[in-house]
């Protein structure tokens, strides 16, 4: 569902790819003010939820 994206420009973890079945992925910046990122942080805080490594 959530996967790290490594920036081709900087070579660092720059954003998160979120995939939902049947929909295009969305790309979420690592900004606490972004509501998609806030939602990710809530998901990550649940035991057992771990973001996938980048390809």
């Amino acid at each position, binding site marked *: 569902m959530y996967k790290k*994206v490594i*920036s*081709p*420009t*900087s070579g660092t973890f*720059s*954003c998160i*790819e979120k995939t939902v079945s049947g929909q*295009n*992925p*969305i*790309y*979420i*910046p690592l*900004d606490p*003010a*972004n*509501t*998609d990122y806030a939602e990710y942080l809530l998901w990550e805080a649940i035991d057992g939820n771990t973001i996938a490594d980048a390809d």
Partner: protein
Amino acid sequence: MSLILDGTNGITNLTSINGGQLGGRRNLVMNGAMNVAQRTTSTAGLGATALERVLDRWGLITNTVTAGRVTMAQVADGPSGFANCLKLTTTTADTSIAAGEVMLIQHAFEGQDLQQIYKGVSGAKELTVSFYVKGNANATYTCELFDRDNGRTIGQAFAVTTAWNRIELTFPGDEDDGSSPFDDDNNVSLHIQIFLHGGSTFSGGTFVNNTWADQANNTRMAESHTSILDATSRTFFITGVQMETGATATAFEHRSYGEELALCQRYFQQWGGDTAYGFFGGVSSCTTTSTAFHPIICEVEMRANPTFAFVGAASVFDLRNDANGSHPLTGLAMDQSTRKVVSITLTRSNADLTVNVPSQLIGNNSTVGRLELRADI
């Protein structure tokens, strides 16, 4: 009507000022006239997802429990002086209301935009919310102000009839404990919420009209509340939403479409969908035979670093890279995001791009493809 001059409210009932546009920038609500709908003008089957947006700055909130479904749309209807409104139409009724069900429409304010109301500190100001509503039949709903920073709520019931009526609701200032101001930042501090449906979790307690209190969910909906999901004939129309400081509901402050669009673009921007070979702006640069970078320059600075999304298959986007013509994409992703510029990566699995040649991102003979930046609250 008498002219009133006092030290609290200033001059009231002076129609040449309060009834006109001389006192500009009174309305704290964005897209209150429901004229801006960048995403789409109608979405059906809503009710299964926690948050849905159709018109800019207005969200439909449900808790995904209800079986009821509605269509939310921008429609060309309104009282005199308004071209558009937000319309909800119930398409699937739900008369077996579980305790935790809720459905409401919501508008959000950033804390930094509300410092002037002194919320939570000495001298907290009254707020007046006004709007025009109608429905298919008489109904009673609840308008709430929800202080997200401090977990405080206040609500008032209002009536809907089959004719357009202006509702004017003045809420007292809330000094709270005297030291709980809204955060001075770009996060949400206050919501206007119109409760349209809810179970006992939201109505089981004793509703106290127009009194600020710490959040207690079971007192948030007024007594004798209508459910918009009680029948498939049910409709709800709203426009002309205004929130202003003070105890007087002044005339709705109309703003130009361009002004309102720019305000909304702080939260959402989109490109594309206009013509089959529409240009997506910016100049792309190919760094490998299969990868290009494309800058998206934001129309206005966004509230937060935005989320990137695209509509349509990757193949509806075309990178015109060299004399060989069309190069439909196989992937789009985000590289970096800031409030002013977003860099996206374009992928072409055929690996036939010419490196270091300025390129154009256009539609691939399709109006389906759209690029979106989202910084909603």
